[in-house]
């Protein structure tokens, strides 16, 4: 067996005031292995890696690299020691070419300090050949796919000669075919002697790719074992701390009347591009329509167009036969319950109290929330609603007057779900409703979605998580480059087919050819 390269010993980290992110975590990474770090959202995987990488300070514990104590104060020091990390968000300059992005910050220079363009470009080209990355060094980053950008991020680190690569949820933004390609490249890297630490919460991927798996749960390292000795069920049990049922019970849909009818919805950006291009769709009562697609292909624009947050350039939008194409937001809120993707930006006011967040929209649509000729808020009614949400949606909270941001992510989402679902609107629009939630909360949300369907609501679910779409949706539509490219019945399609459409058809063939 290979020698221990990185040894994390008894690492603890508390985020002020009282969130224990890591509690006495010890993990060893051996050189030349692919080591997966798995766990639910919030289990501490990313924090642990940020502590190693010098992005977060630890409160306790030691870090050993090849047996000597190290303490990186920033990523620059970590990279100098041969450790590099690729973050979830890709940070590249779209106007620059691939080689320009790669050398940025570590440029070869002439004697007088001018950029040595020829050497720089050549070195990047050589690295691309060495690792068989299939990239054109002169292509501007803005013109290449998300998967290719990710490769550029990895290349950036390889150019700086790191031997350890930390990848934080690299597959989150990829289509299934692209995931396969990435894995081949990672295995190739490992065979060349690199060590790869791979953060994920997708069990199939973890088992398929890695040599070692460390499971984290609630800030603790539960176990490290060779992937060959693990099963998916065993891994899930370690992650959640109990057995998980993978297939949610979903009875066949019995859809009724159309509730949402959109025709040719078009949203134009300020530079004249169609971010949403002639999208037509229908959601019927008692039906869940899933919207799949690689992020940034018009899903957000679709949500904004439905909610009235952006003006449509063409097309029409009807809910229950009422024309909402150009209605103001308040009018739409009578018909639409909305759970946005970004809790802190769109779904809640973080510094406001739980109560103040719980009554939003209710306080306008329901007259019982007002007193004194509508001038004053009826706080008694407001408290009653907050309590109802707390009990009905199982929110663990102490005081309705506490700030919303004092709740955990899962509980925040439950308050938002409760608020929106108790509006009892005929159409429910959910944009990434389980993003950042743990397995338990995710199961809960999926249960709620299926319950809504039974209660004959029309549900439009936008999700970047294909598993989620396949678990709950009755029909799946796929968006690519602002267009609706496929409308499929869940029973009659596969992940591969959806992935094919996600990549816009043509690219998909290309990606498969690479494998």
């Amino acid at each position: 067996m290979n020698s221990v390269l990185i040894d994390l010993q008894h690492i603890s980290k508390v985020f002020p005031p009282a969130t224990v992110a890591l509690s006495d975590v010890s993990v060893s990474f051996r050189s030349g292995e692919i080591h997966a770090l798995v766990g639910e959202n919030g289990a501490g995987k990313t924090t642990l890696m940020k502590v190693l990488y010098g992005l977060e300070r630890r409160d306790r514990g030691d870090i050993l690299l090849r047996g000597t104590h190290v303490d990186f104060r920033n990523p620059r020091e970590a990279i100098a020691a041969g450790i590099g990390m690729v973050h979830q968000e890709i940070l590249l300059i779209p106007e620059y070419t691939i080689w320009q992005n790669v050398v940025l910050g570590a440029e070869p220079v002439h004697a007088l300090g001018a950029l040595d363009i020829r050497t720089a470009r050549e070195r990047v080209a050589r690295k691309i050949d060495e690792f068989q990355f299939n990239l054109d060094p002169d292509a501007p980053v803005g013109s290449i796919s998300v998967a290719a950008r990710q490769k550029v991020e990895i290349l950036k680190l390889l150019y700086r000669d790191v031997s350890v690569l930390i990848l934080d949820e690299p597959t989150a933004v990829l289509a299934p075919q692209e995931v396969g390609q990435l894995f081949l490249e990672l295995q190739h890297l490992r065979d060349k002697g690199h060590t790869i630490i791979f953060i994920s919460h997708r069990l199939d991927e973890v088992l398929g790719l890695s040599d070692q798996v460390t499971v984290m749960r609630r800030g603790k390292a539960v176990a490290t074992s060779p992937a060959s000795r693990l099963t998916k069920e065993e891994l899930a049990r370690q992650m959640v701390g109990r057995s998980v049922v993978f297939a949610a019970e979903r009875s066949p849909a019995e859809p009724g009347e159309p509730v949402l009818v959109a025709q040719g919805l078009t949203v134009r950006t300020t530079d004249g591009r169609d971010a949403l291009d002639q999208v037509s769709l229908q959601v019927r009562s008692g039906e869940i329509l899933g919207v799949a697609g690689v992020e940034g292909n018009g899903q957000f624009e679709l949500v904004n167009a439905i909610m009235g947050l952006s003006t449509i350039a063409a097309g029409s939008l009807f809910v229950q036969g009422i024309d909402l194409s150009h209605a103001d937001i308040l009018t739409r809120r009578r018909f639409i319950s909305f759970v946005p993707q970004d809790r802190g930006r769109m779904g809640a006011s973080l510094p406001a109290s739980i109560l103040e967040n719980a009554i939003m929209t209710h306080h306008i649509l329901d007259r019982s929330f007002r007193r004194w000729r509508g001038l004053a808020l009826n706080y008694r009614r407001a408290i009653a609603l907050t309590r109802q949400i707390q009990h009905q949606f199982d929110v663990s909270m102490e005081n309705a007057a506490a700030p919303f941001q004092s709740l955990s992510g899962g509980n925040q989402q439950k308050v938002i779900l409760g608020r929106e679902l108790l509006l009892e609107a005929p159409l429910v629009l959910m944009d990434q409703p389980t993003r950042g939630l743990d397995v338990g909360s995710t199961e809960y949300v999926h249960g709620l979605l299926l319950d809504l369907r039974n209660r004959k609501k029309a549900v439009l679910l936008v999700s970047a998580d294909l598993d989620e779409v396949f678990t709950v949706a009755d029909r799946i539509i796929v968006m690519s480059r602002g267009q609706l490219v496929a409308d499929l019945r869940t029973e009659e399609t596969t992940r591969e087919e959806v992935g094919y459409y996600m990549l816009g058809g043509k690219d998909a063939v290309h990606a498969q050819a690479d494998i």
Partner: protein
Amino acid sequence: MRKQTFSGILGVLAALVIGGVVLALQKFNPFSTYGALLQYSLLSASGLSAMLSRAVPLVLTGLSASIAFGSGLNNLGQPGQLVIGALGATVVGLFVPLPAVALIPVCIAAAMVGGMLWSGLAAGLRRAFAMDEFIVTLMLNFIADYFALWAITYPLFDPAALSPMTRPIRTYAWLSEVGGINASVLYMVVATVLCWLLMSKGVSGYEWRIMGQNRLFARIGGCRVDAHYVRVMLVTGALAGLAGGLMVMGGPHRFVKGLGANYAWDGVMIAVVANNSIPGTFFYGLLFSMLQQGAIGMELVTAVPSEFIDVLQAIIVLVVVAGRVSLNLMFDRIATRKKLRESLQ
């Protein structure tokens, strides 16, 4: 809320100690200085009366700034709105022949309308041309100042006066003293209570507060944020205008050059210290007027120059604002340590 009261009191006390050290370094006796300060404000009838009158513009412009900032608007036009409000009350007080029962309310209304006009102008420019109210309200302050100066130098000039000022307004519009305290103080208290009701009990206050914290969330929630924007501008303009009107009606009974002085900027500062809380604005307004009023007496009986009070005010602002943040950090750090120990057991 309780944490804020605590950190506020602690901050003011700390600032007084720092001020005392500054005094001692200059070879003044801090105790007799602070004693004189109190003697000529809180502890004597005439001092108290003058202090409360002085608090009127401080508190009202402070409320204006608190409500604006709390709703996410950068209304920094309190000085100009105050001046135009004062001018409105003066014009009505000079030229409208009404009996006392009617003239006082009409003058007050004219002051508020004047302030609303000035803030409404900024709101209109924002709606029509997307001009940022931050810069517009600031610039309108200069226009208001020079417009008022022109008005009292030429059309409204009192021929008997030696410097720019209007003739006195009709005596019917004068606010009387009730038990030694000017009636303008009463209006200030009523305005504070109404503002508190609006912000803590009202539907508008709720929506404004949320709008100030997260405008997009308020908008998605169905609040009419554009209409609220105009309303907040008008209400906060009216408050600043009211301050100006009450200053004319309760004080010199005419518009004299330099009437607005620095009151409105002090009001903005008070809102910042009070972290936009209505009761906080009221109390800090009283505190600052106490210091400013006491400074006059302090200069009489001690050798300390009244400028020392400017220094002391600045120290209070810095210590309270910085203290609020660092106290929270300190509470957090204690909690962090406790949690770390618990989690490792």
